[in-house]
């Protein structure tokens, strides 16, 4: 777990047993965290970044990380903001106060999705069993974040280290996503 770039935002859930632990790949459930969806116009980007504590990335598929904060690019006017679970109210109020009077939409989506931490030398191989995205380091460098499709479920993939990915799916789709990942990994166990 040493290459986990965002290790103070995304942490393995201590109470959960690993969903999978093979020599080449492991899947851990991430602890609950604060997730906010923020949409706003260009003019308000610097102010929002200042209030949140991490700049909002403006490069496509980019992520900005600072202490206990991560801002992920979702679209040209849409970001997902991550923070520790117990700081939800403080972060929310801070941004709302700073953006008072500027058109924006800030929504708490903490309970909409759950995250998995997929790591190991075979992590990208495992994700590619259900995702048509090139995960080579040239095309998908560390820090890249994107929404895509895993088999039939929408997921968010964030590369936090060379061999570490955060996979987020909606709560009701998580059984499906985690189930297929574990199932697909059996191929590695058999090899």
């Amino acid at each position, binding site marked *: 777990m040493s290459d986990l770039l965002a290790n103070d935002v995304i942490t393995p859930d201590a109470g959960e047993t690993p969903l999978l632990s093979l020599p080449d790949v492991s899947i851990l459930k991430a602890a609950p965290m604060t997730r906010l969806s923020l949409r706003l116009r260009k003019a308000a980007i610097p102010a929002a970044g200042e209030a949140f504590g991490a700049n909002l990335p403006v490069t496509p*598929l980019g992520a900005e990380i600072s202490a206990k904060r991560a801002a992920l690019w979702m*679209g*040209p006017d849409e970001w997902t903001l991550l923070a520790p679970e117990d700081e939800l109210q403080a972060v929310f109020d801070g941004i709302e106060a700073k953006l008072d009077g500027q058109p924006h939409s800030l929504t708490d989506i903490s309970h909409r999705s759950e995250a998995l931490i997929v790591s190991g030398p075979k992590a990208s191989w495992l994700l590619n069993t259900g995702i*048509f995205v090139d995960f080579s380091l040239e095309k998908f460098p560390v820090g890249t974040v994107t*929404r*895509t*499709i895993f088999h039939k479920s929408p997921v968010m993939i964030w590369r936090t280290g060379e061999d570490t990915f955060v996979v987020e799916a909606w709560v009701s789709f998580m059984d499906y996503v985690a189930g297929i990942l574990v199932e697909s990994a059996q191929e590695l166990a058999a090899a």
Partner: protein
Amino acid sequence: MLLIYCPYCEVERPETEFHNGGEAHIARPADPSKTSDEEWAEFLYMRSNVKGIAVERWRHIHGCGRFFNVVRDTVSDKILKVYKVDDPMPDLEALAKEAGR
């Protein structure tokens, strides 16, 4: 499967991430209250459905969520140009020539 370049994400992604949004550059009537039934029907239902160079809207629904425009040859399924929604329609004849049609 088509590989489509998203001009907002600036990456090429598989077709499964996208949703086709029908013909592009169809302007809503400027003054709806003065629009006749025939004009409404024209706006709502009539599409050019070309065999050859078509201009379509696509949405990167499982990515950034943006709509954008794609010039696609409906015969070869080849994508000739991708551009953002607020960009003007490119010169289709020049694109067709370039594609050798």
